[in-house]
């Protein structure tokens, strides 16, 4: 019986020891952190979207490592690929008080919650203490928050959305590469020719990523001035434009211009069709330049393996225009930037390091590395050395040189649940299960309720 008592005692001691061990582990961690701080080096937690397949992931790593060497500080990089779960993670981190010190994030509606909560510092407030902060940027081009019209995020690289073309398919179908005067009617005629030649005119997965077509279809029925205005109902002029845009996509679907499996395919599948020379047109963002270049490399991670002949088959041009929108009016802008959080600002040791980090990453030397063929907000953008770019990047620069306006995406304003009826509901719209008018009105109702 004594043995049982001893066993029970031993088990109790083991449990107590385990719990004590857990507690002491925490203390050790704290001590280590404290020791780090006393040496003068600051550990900065940074979250960006420069990760995974992002074209700037390597540039980002090289840049922050250079900053680390220069300052002796350390970056705890917690970057992740930009998608919905990333956005959710950032919002949740702010909610639970575990936000990073510096954040590279969207400056549209996605940032509203933490700006409203006062968890990031405006550029104006930072400049009150550090007058040189982001002074190399043209303030007029730094987007203001939708919450209080103040600028918070210092931008690095912009983005644009345009139409990529597979010239091999166009040649086979006897279609010219579209130019700056491309109209919707000319586009429909080209699609018909391409379809007759046995190719798929448009590479798009309507059941997965209808976003780009959604945006331009609406833009074709609004103007540069009112594109970012969310209509009150489908009865007003802009609302009618939205419905007409959805009807246009439905018409393209009914004409058989999308892939046969557009409702069940993923975006990756339709992109593969485009790259493999089975589809002619692809509307996507500036980030897709990197994707197409990677697809032309035998080793996607090694630029030296680029097949230049294959890359020569791709071009980027303007999305067909309409009466209200010129083909050269594109979607784009500076939608992301570096925020400094209040948490870092209130920490005397981190404040200096955070300002130093953002200043370094948005300097005249670093920004061009990230911006490449996209826009930036630099006051004095350096001359571009074309030799540093591949053929598609140069074509993209040439296309952007002819761009007459860059307008933000209305889906960045009209985000969240209100988009569901026309984004996830796009298959229902194009198949006629739900009318375009009903789907748009449903989304507007949700938007109004928000």
């Amino acid at each position: 019986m004594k043995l049982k008592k001893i066993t029970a005692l031993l088990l109790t001691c083991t449990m107590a020891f385990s719990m004590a061990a857990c507690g002491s582990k925490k203390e050790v961690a704290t001590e280590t952190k404290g020791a780090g701080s006393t040496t003068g080096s600051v550990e900065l937690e940074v979250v960006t979207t420069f990760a995974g397949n992002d074209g700037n992931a390597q540039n980002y790593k090289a840049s922050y490592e250079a900053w680390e060497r220069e300052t002796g500080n350390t970056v705890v990089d917690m970057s992740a690929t930009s998608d919905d779960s990333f956005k959710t993670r950032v919002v949740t981190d702010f909610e639970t008080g575990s936000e990073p010190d510096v954040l590279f994030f969207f400056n549209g509606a996605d940032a509203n919650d933490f700006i409203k909560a006062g968890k990031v510092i405006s550029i104006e407030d930072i400049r009150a203490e550090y007058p040189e902060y982001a002074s190399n940027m043209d303030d007029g081009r730094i987007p203001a928050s939708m919450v209080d019209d103040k600028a918070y995020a210092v931008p690095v690289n912009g983005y644009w959305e345009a139409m990529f073309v597979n010239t091999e398919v166009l040649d086979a179908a006897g279609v010219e590469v579209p130019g700056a005067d491309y109209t919707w009617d000319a586009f429909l005629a080209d699609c018909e020719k391409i379809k007759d030649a046995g190719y798929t005119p448009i590479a798009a997965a309507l059941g997965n990523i209808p976003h780009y077509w959604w945006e331009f279809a609406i833009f074709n029925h609004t103007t540069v001035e009112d594109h970012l205005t969310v209509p009150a109902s489908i009865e007003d002029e802009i609302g009618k434009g939205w419905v007409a845009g959805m009807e246009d996509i439905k018409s393209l679907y009914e004409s058989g211009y999308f892939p046969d499996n557009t409702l069940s395919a993923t975006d990756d599948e339709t992109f593969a069709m485009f790259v493999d020379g089975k589809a002619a047109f692809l509307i996507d963002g500036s980030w897709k330049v990197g994707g197409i270049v990677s697809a032309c490399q035998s080793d996607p991670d090694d630029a030296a393996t680029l097949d230049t002949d294959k890359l020569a088959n791709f071009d980027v041009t303007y999305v067909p225009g309409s009466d209200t929108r010129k083909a050269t009016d594109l979607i784009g802008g500076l939608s992301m930037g570096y925020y400094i959080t209040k948490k870092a600002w209130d920490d005397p040791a981190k404040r200096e390091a955070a300002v130093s980090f953002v200043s370094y990453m948005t300097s005249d030397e670093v920004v061009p590395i990230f911006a490449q063929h996209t826009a930036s907000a630099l006051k004095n953008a350096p001359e571009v050395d074309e030799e540093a770019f591949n053929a598609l990047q140069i074509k993209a620069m040439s296309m952007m040189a002819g761009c007459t306006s860059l307008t933000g995406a209305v889906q960045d304003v009209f985000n969240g649940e209100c988009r569901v009826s026309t984004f996830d509901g796009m298959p229902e719209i194009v198949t006629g299960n739900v009318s375009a008018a009903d789907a748009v009105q449903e989304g507007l109702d949700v938007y109004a309720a928000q």
Partner: protein
Amino acid sequence: MDANIYKNKKPLILFLFPAFVFMAVYLYYPFFKNILDSFMQIKQLGVSGEEFNTPWYTNYVEMIHDQNVWTSLKNTLIMMVVTLVGQVGIALILALMVDNITKGAKLFRTLYFFPIVVSATALGLLFNLIFLYDKGMLNQFLEVLGRKTLIDWKGEHLALFTMMLPVMWQYVGFYFVIIITGLNNIPEELYEAASIDGATKLQRIRYITLPMAHNVLCTCAVLAVTGALKVFDLPWIMFPKGMPLKSTFLTGTYMYYQTMEVKNVDYGAALAVMIVILGVVLSKVVNTIFKEKDY
């Protein structure tokens, strides 16, 4: 004095307490909080609900009118039938065959059980490649056989079949192992006696194997039906957002879609409550139907 150690149960509470705290924090609290959340307004993940819906039972009324809820319930019921017939049925046939061979039984056990150890996510990606429209394994194979057009295996007409086939295939081995273990426990003497009496192999299965394996089959049936309610990862990997045309939603995937994609968190919480109620009711029904017998 020595016998008191059996009567004194206090030390047991000490040891049970950590597990109870763990369950309370990570299961019971979220469970009851979820019920409360289903009545609140929550339109963002990670954000607490601050006010109740008006009226507070809005989500439950919406659920009745939501066509996708009915689609997901229908698909989940089909999934139950598929798991019962497809998984347990095929597992039984395989087990009966393997039970009748003397050599290689262990090899077949391993082969059939293998899919269980592969993660559902990996299997989803694997089957995505098999059913891929352009250059997918199946379509390439059919092309070799002379078919001129591609089949959209994930299209509206074949989506449910394409979704349920891998799920069925994945768990056949699980039930196979349970059933064959049950078959191994049937005394050999019964078969010998039946053989002497002139019973054929089919008669031995009908009159000895199946009655003797009744309880094992009942256990498998209960596991299959309740398991069908929890199927999530493989269908979600293959058919995200209920693609195509929201026709492949299961109760679990629809709840995830509403919560994580649409960010209608309170409605997702209400769907979770529905799944729990459905699970409890169905488990009760299945337990009643497939009641184990005492021999």
